Every structure is written in C-alpha cells, then in structure tokens.
C-alpha cells in the first residue's frame, strides 16, 4: 500500500522543505544569543523595567536615558574596554514577573550586571534575585527609603541610584515650614494616594513640617486610591474643610487628573498647593491649564540645577527622543555614568570589583547639587543629587527658580530619622 502523501509529491516536498526552512530559522533564532555572546567581549547589562501599562512612559524614559549614556560610554571604550550591551525587558509592573525576568537576564542572557529600573514592589523582588544570584544590582527607580536604609535588607552587591523619599520629605518639610511660618499658614490638608509610598511620604513630610512650623495642624486627610479616575469626592471634602494649604504626593496621571478636576472648582485660588511630584515634564506638559504658584519638589527640570551642563543634557535627550527627560530618566542615565567611573577606577568590568569601586565613589554629573553625585559607602545609595523646591508658572521653563537645602542639613535630618526608625 502506498503512503497517502505519495499521491501528491509536489505538495509534500514543499511542506518538507518549508518545514526544514522553518526549523533552520527557529534554530538560528534560538542560538543567536550564544553566537552573539561568543563573537564579542561585550558586557551585557540587564534592565528589567515597566514598558507596558500606566507607568510605561516612565519605563520608556528609563530605557532611553540609559541607552543615550551607554552610547557615550561605548564611544569612549566601554567598561574597561568592554562595550556595554543593554538587554531590556518588560516586567509589566508585576513583582513575580520582575523576579522572573531578572533571573532570566542573568541566567539565560548572560547579563553580568542588573540595572533594576522597576518601581518599588518590583525592586524588592529584584533585590531578592540579587541576593540569590549575587549579581551586581543597582536599583534606579525605587524611592522607598527602607530599600537601602534598613540594614536588614542590605546586600554588598545591591546599590541604589535614585532619589530617596526621606530626602525629599526633609527638604519639602523644611521649605514648606518656612513659608508656613512667614505667611502664618496653620491649617493644612493632605491628599495622597492610598498605598505605602503615599502614606509614608505624607507622614514624613508632615513630621518635618510640624517640627519646623509647630503651629501647623492637619485638619483634613484625603486618601484617593491609586489610579483613581475621579477626585470629586476628595475635592469637595477639601473645599469644605477650607485649609490654607494642601500637600499631595499624587504623581503622574493621578496628579494631572487631580489638578484638572480641582481647577474646575477653583481649588488652587483658595489654598496653597504643595505637590512634591509636580515638577516633572510628564506632569507639567500634560496639565491643561497649569495653575501658577504650585509648590513642587524637583523631579527633573532642565533648569535645576541651573547649569549649562544640565540644560545641555535635557536638550540632548529631547533632540534624540522628542520629549524632555523624566525623573526616572536622569536616574538611569546617572547609573551608567557610575558604572563607567567604577570600571575606570577598578580597571575591570567584574561585578565584585565594580561593587568595591562603587562604594564611596564620587562622579561629576550635571544632575549633582554641586556638579557631583556620591554613592555613599555606608548604605550604598546616592547622595548629593540636585534636590529643591520651587513654584510653577504656566509655560516653559515651568519652574523658573528652585530653592535647595544644603545636603549637610539633609544628612542631619536623615540621621535623626534613621535613629528613630532603628536603622542606625
């Protein structure tokens, strides 16, 4: 008996050929990473970040800034002679996916360094991967203070190159208290997202505010859910409470929605508004009618620090990607500068030697308060970055002037906080 296929020889041979071709393509695709790995002595740097969902814009800006700096470093010879290859993956903002992607980057893709560009929950998950695998890992987007401040969580191979909640609160509290004392603003309200970041940051801000302006009392608290679309309830509650000033650490789309909705009720003509996360281009450019006089911490604006280097950095980014950098962007740019400087100091791209070199390393940076940023040795987190508060105007440069607090003062306040928390 003949095989059924023999009656149609032509179609069968095409199928087989097609199958073989598909197989070859598949084999080629699968083996590509190994071939690539064997060809050059590139150093692969893995970067899990959020490229989908509501925070995608920030994740994309992290990727952009890191790539921009990598190009510069590679043009100058790479990490101790080894060109950097960024391997970037989306974690969708899910911690278990962040852990999976981070493990895969190290175990399958051969990444020797992790730049963890995750928001906080993802960062804690990647932190555990770093603990398990012992790979050099630098968190670039989590601002949760305990990530580096809590000695129980500390790892010799994990660093943070991002601003920290406690620093922002110390500066914000000091700044707000000065104005509160001068203008006799005693009745305050808060409106922050209802999750750990919102609650912790608000509590720290209020703590410093009350400390430097003892007459202040908080008469109303609003805790809208994160990603809540409608703030009418919170806004009417605020209008009824009639505070003289309002603090908020809403961010991104939440902050812009809140401002747009509150503007309808003319909320900002009735009270001073302190929004720590306002001065980021993602928020500044999205608000329909940006009210003048909103007080904000600097996230990223190219006018602070007011140096030609910073303006040039922001403009270069804009020229390349068609928009201004974000707060996440500068942090992911600076981390590449840190790696380059550490490789130069250690004359090696080995993770362990890089970690040793990073501890206490000071680099020149347009984002530094005095033109430098330091990776503090004791808790392996950056200090000395530009940090300040100012008020907005409706168009560029949006925040013409920022007022900064000297880092020495921030250190004192931070040390007290650490003592209270049992971290020091």
């Amino acid at each position, binding site marked *: 008996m003949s095989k059924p296929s023999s009656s149609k020889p032509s179609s069968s041979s095409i199928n087989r050929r097609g199958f073989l071709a598909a197989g070859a393509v598949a084999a080629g695709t699968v083996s590509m990473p190994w071939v690539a790995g064997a060809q050059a002595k590139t150093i692969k740097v893995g970067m899990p970040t959020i490229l989908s969902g509501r925070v995608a814009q920030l994740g994309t800006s992290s990727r952009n800034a890191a790539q921009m700096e990598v190009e510069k470093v590679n043009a100058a010879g790479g990490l101790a002679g080894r060109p950097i290859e960024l391997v970037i993956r989306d974690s969708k903002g899910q*911690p278990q996916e962040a852990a999976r992607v981070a493990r895969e980057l190290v175990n399958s893709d051969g990444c020797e360094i992790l730049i963890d560009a995750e928001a906080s929950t993802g960062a804690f998950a990647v932190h*555990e991967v770093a603990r398990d695998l012992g790979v050099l890992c630098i968190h670039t987007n989590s601002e*949760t203070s305990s990530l580096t401040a809590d000695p129980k969580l500390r790892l010799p191979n994990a660093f943070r190159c991002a601003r920290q909640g406690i620093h922002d609160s110390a500066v914000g509290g000091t700044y707000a208290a000065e104005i509160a004392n001068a203008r006799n603003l005693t009745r305050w309200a808060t409106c922050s997202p209802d999750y750990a970041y919102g609650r912790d940051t608000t509590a720290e801000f209020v703590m410093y505010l009350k400390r430097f302006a003892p007459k202040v009392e908080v008469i109303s608290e609003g805790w809208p859910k994160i990603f809540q679309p409608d703030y009418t309830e919170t806004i009417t509650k605020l209008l009824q409470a009639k505070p003289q000033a309002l603090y908020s650490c809403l961010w991104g789309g939440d902050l812009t929605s809140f401002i747009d909705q509150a503007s309808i009720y003319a909320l900002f003509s009735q009270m001073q508004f302190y929004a720590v996360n306002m001065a980021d281009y993602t928020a500044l450019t999205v608000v329909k009618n940006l009210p003048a006089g909103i007080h904000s911490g600097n996230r990223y604006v190219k006018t602070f620090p007011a140096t030609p280097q910073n303006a040039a950095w922001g403009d270069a980014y804009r020229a390349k990607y068609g928009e201004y950098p974000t707060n996440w962007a500068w942090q992911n740019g600076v981390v590449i500068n840190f790696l380059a400087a550490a490789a130069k100091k250690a004359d090696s791209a080995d993770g362990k030697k890089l970690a040793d070199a990073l501890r206490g390393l000071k680099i020149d940076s347009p984002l530094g308060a005095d033109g430098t940023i330091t990776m503090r040795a004791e808790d392996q987190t950056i200090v000395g970055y530009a940090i300040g508060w100012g008020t907005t105007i409706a168009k560029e440069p949006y925040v013409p002037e920022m007022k900064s607090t000297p880092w020495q003062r921030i250190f004192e306040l931070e040390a007290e906080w650490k003592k209270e928390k049992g971290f020091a």
Partner: protein
Amino acid sequence: MMRPAFRDALLGLTGFLVLAALPLVFVSSALIDFVIRCAALGLFATSLNLLVGYGGMVSFGHGLFFGMGAYSFGIIMQRTGMPIPLAILLSLGVAALVALVVGAICVRLKEIYFAFVTLAFQMLVHSMIIAWVPVTGGDQGLRGGIPRPPFLGINLADQKQLYLFAAALLIIGLLAMRHIVSSPFGYTLRMIRDNPVRAGFLGIDVYRTRLTAFVLAGMFASLGGVIMSLFVSGAYPEFAFWTMSGEAVFIVMLGGTVAFLGPMVGTVLLLLLNDFVTRVAEHHGLVLGIVILIFALGLRKGLLDFVMDWIEARRTRRGAASLVPAPSPERIAT
C-alpha cells in the same frame, strides 16, 4: 488490565523521572526556572479546574488561595523559621480554614453570584494584605527574603534542589487531584455539576460535596502559592489580586476543562507565550489578545480538549469505516 490508580502513579513517577533528568540533558537555568513556575501555576490552575471543570463552579476569586499560600508560608518562615515541610502543611491548613469559611458562604450560590462573591472575598483579602502592613508588609510585599533552612539534607536555597522539590510537589499534587476526580467523590461532583436537583433527590448532600471540593481546591491552589513564594523568595499583593484569578481562568480556557491535564497544558502554553512574546515584542498584550481570540473563536475549547476530541473523532470515523457502524459514544469527563 492495570488498575487506574496504579497506572496514574506509574505515569506520575515517569513524569517526575523525566523532569528530574531534564537538567542533566539541558543545562539551563531558564529551563529550571520555567519548570518551577509551571509547577506553581499548574497546581493553581488545575485546582481551579476542580471547581470549574468538575464542579461547574466558576470561581473568579481563586487567586485568594494562591496569595494565601504564598503569604502564610512566607510569614511563617520569616517569623518562626520552622522546618519547611511543617510550614507548608501549616500553610495548607490555613488555606483550608479560610476556604472553609469562604466556601460555606459561597457554594450555596449559583453561577454568577458564586463568581462575584468569590471575587468579593478575594478583594477583601487583597485589601487586608495591603492594609495590614506590620504583618504583610503592605503593598511592598514580604521583604527581606524568605529563609530556606535545609531539611532532611535538602537545601531549597539551591535552585536545582528547589527545582526537584517543586517538580515533586507538582507530581504529588496532580496525582492527588487525579485521585480525587477519579474517586466516587469526583463522580458525585460531576453529577452535581450536570444536575444538582437530581443529585439531591438521589440523597447526595450537594452543599457538603461542593464545600469539600472548594476546600480541596483552595488547598492545592495554596500549594502553588507556596512554590511561587519559594521561587521569588517573597510574597506580593499581586498574588492575591483578581488578575491572578483571571490568569488561572485564562489558563484553564487555553488548555481545556475536560481533560485532566488540560490546565497543565494551558500553563505551559501561557508561560511559553508570555516568556517568548515579552522577549521579542514590545506590544505583547496585542499578541496575547490575538491568541485568546483564536482559542475562543477558532477552537472554541481548550487545546488539550480539542486534541482529545480530534483523536476521538478520528477513532470513531475509523470504527465506522471498519464494518461495525456503532453509534459514537458520548465523551465523558475523565
């Protein structure tokens, strides 16, 4: 003829041996991670299928037990440091207790009401996890890693040993569930699914049977959660969020509800898709959405069910062609 239970055990043992031999053939950490995740999600999805496929109870809140397993195991290990097997048993106990309470309220309800009340309980637990910061770590999850002290010479801090451990738990879990669905209890459950009134007239306590199934499903889901928490060395609120339940429902749809291993096939498929697509495409949501559409509109059933039906149909055709024109037997859930 071999007894079914013996055959299943033999198949399970073979499955385990194959899994155990895999790392010897392919030296790849990614493969090891993949199988561990498959074990966690596979147990979770198969346990959901106990309710959906065998009990006819579509639960939208099954992630509750997955999260419960991860959290209770993580908290027990971080706070007491008791031996891991004991902690796992205790976590299963906690999940069973919670399932008993939730089930006692839910299983009386029909269809959409059952689905929504389970969802409501899940959101309740999710909110508790977020709010009870001193115990659960709030929305940052359980931080600082889950200690994995060696027991009986097994060190789960070593990924290879964790792999074998997860594979063993998966096989044991699947065998246990297989045993449950092939037992008289399993058939009673199917009867209730098809016609609860009739089952009641036959003297079956419908409520108790459903509740038992609910508790058992909750326990196996929490075992999946335990494996996941061992894998990520932590526990996160997302584990108990509705999206987690949605993922399990999707897996069951993808793999099939009739064949016992349908959800397992679905798990492998989903994870492969997820890992591959996120690697090559930025808009992976689009690709996954299209795949869902293909399954929902094209196959109209899970992959394994489709394959089984196809084999069955072919066999029937052959049977019809060879002399005896027998009427095709109705396929029953196995």
